[in-house]
């Protein structure tokens, strides 16, 4: 566990040593605010909740999280520092988890910085803060799912741009699998269990449960499994691509 913590600390510091962290946080706050108020019709809805804020998170994460994840492994391979990292007495899994946790903590920081919205909604009305807390936690868990995909893809290439694009596409497939557009494509011919299986892989479906304020164990298990599977593959890729 010590080595996971050491890696996490270094990676988190690495985010803040470049402008990336600040650019990301500013864009995340700016976009999430703009979407909430303009597209989400925060005021017009006349409801004291943050639905219009959270409902855009799956879309925001679609391209912002691959941007956070793309450097995790691709940069190490490009600069050759993976040779340094992977010859330290640190197991591969510890490095994978350490990096993942650092990026996750970074996203958590960005998410926490949206607190003015929470203050606003509490000032304007009397929202159910339990629902809001659940949605924040759910959003962070979903971010972990995107991040695991991004980290895994990042390990497979030396090129951060490729890592970004591929991670965004893979995330998009996971996001969209529950949407009517995709579902109707299968519903005509595929058996019900197939359409249901595809639907059950959808980030959107699972997240929509969560933002209603219900943290269902099944949703947590779903995102947990996505994280687990992708990080497992991530570690395997790191070991397979040593020296190449």
């Amino acid at each position, binding site marked *: 566990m010590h080595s996971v913590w050491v890696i996490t600390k270094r990676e988190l510091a690495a985010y803040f040593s470049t402008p990336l962290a600040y650019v990301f946080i500013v864009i995340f706050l700016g976009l999430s605010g703009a979407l909430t108020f303009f597209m989400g019709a925060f005021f017009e809805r006349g409801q004291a909740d943050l639905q219009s804020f959270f409902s855009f998170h799956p879309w925001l994460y679609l391209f912002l999280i691959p941007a956070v994840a793309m450097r995790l492994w691709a940069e190490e391979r490009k600069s050759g*520092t993976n040779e340094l990292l992977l010859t330290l007495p640190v197991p591969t899994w510890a490095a994978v988890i350490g990096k993942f946790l650092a990026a996750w903590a970074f996203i958590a920081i960005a998410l926490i910085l949206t607190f003015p919205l929470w203050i606003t909604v509490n000032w304007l009305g009397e929202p159910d803060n339990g629902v809001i807390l659940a949605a924040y936690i759910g959003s962070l868990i979903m971010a972990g799912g995107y991040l695991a995909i991004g980290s895994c893809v990042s390990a497979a290439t030396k090129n951060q741009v490729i890592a970004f694009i591929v991670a965004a596409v893979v995330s998009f497939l996971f996001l969209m699998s529950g949407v009517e557009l995709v579902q109707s494509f299968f519903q005509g011919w595929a058996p019900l269990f197939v359409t249901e299986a595809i639907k059950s892989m959808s980030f959107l479906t699972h997240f929509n449960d969560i933002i209603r304020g219900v943290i269902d164990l099944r949703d947590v298990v779903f995102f947990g499994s996505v994280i687990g599977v992708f990080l497992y593959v991530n570690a395997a890729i790191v070991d397979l691509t040593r020296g190449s």
Partner: protein
Amino acid sequence: MSEQAPMIVLENLTKRFGPFTAVDGISLNVSKGEVLGFLGPNGAGKSTTMRMVTGFLPITSGAAGVCGFDVANQPQEARRRVGYLPEGAPLYGDMATRNFLGFIAEARGFTGADKTDRVDHAVKRLALESVVNQPIDTLSKGYKRRVGLAQAILHDPDVMILDEPTDGLDPNQKHQVRELIQEMAAEKAIIISTHILEEVTAVCSRATIIARGRIVFDGTPDELQSKAPHHNAVAVRLANADGTAIRDALAGLPDVERVEQPDGASTLMVIPRNGASIVEQVGGLVRDRGAEVDELYVERGHLDDVFRQLTLSE
């Protein structure tokens, strides 16, 4: 483990990348106090071998052991005992020198005062005091290499694997790095790879040449030098142009194989039989004849020639 047991053991170490065999059955032992110079042309398998010993690359077949720990089966134990400078000394450029060394110290399990001591010691040893707070990206090449060496010696490892530690450094920096290696040599088993041949005579107690993934020479630097075509030849430059008589006399000496006259008249190159030492005989003969000698020296032989001969043959 007894004092005499070798600290680095390679047994039939082999690495294949698809159909290509990069390292082809290398067996080596390196003991404490030895500095092994690993020589070979580019692509001969030097870095691949080192990467297997340090646990970066998986081993295709054969085995590598460090201080009695098998690199494949006890990777963490083995890595704990190795200080490794990868080729080109990759470093986290966005970190300041001190933070970077602190990270390496923590990853190697040092915390608190212990960590600070280790970092301070390494900084002092490599004379990095003036750059401890500078981001590594802003350092000169020589400093970067020294930071790379600092992270390799930080935990005072029994085994050091240094891949081209002096590559790209200026002569003064090379000298510093060699001095450091020599200072550490007595307490450790060290492998350095290089393609600078003078480095072998400067720092190594043993030279191993590999070509196409196989060992083609393993011995002391002196033995390596003795394989040079002109090893122990004596060059004589005579003041008066007519050296024909002396030349014939020299050729008649018992230990002399032949006499060459490379650049026309004045210099005679006396080649000994089987690398014998003939300088006294040659000197005596020239003195007896009363010839005026401008210059007389023993040729050590060029390592470059041996290197070419060993790595291009077959």
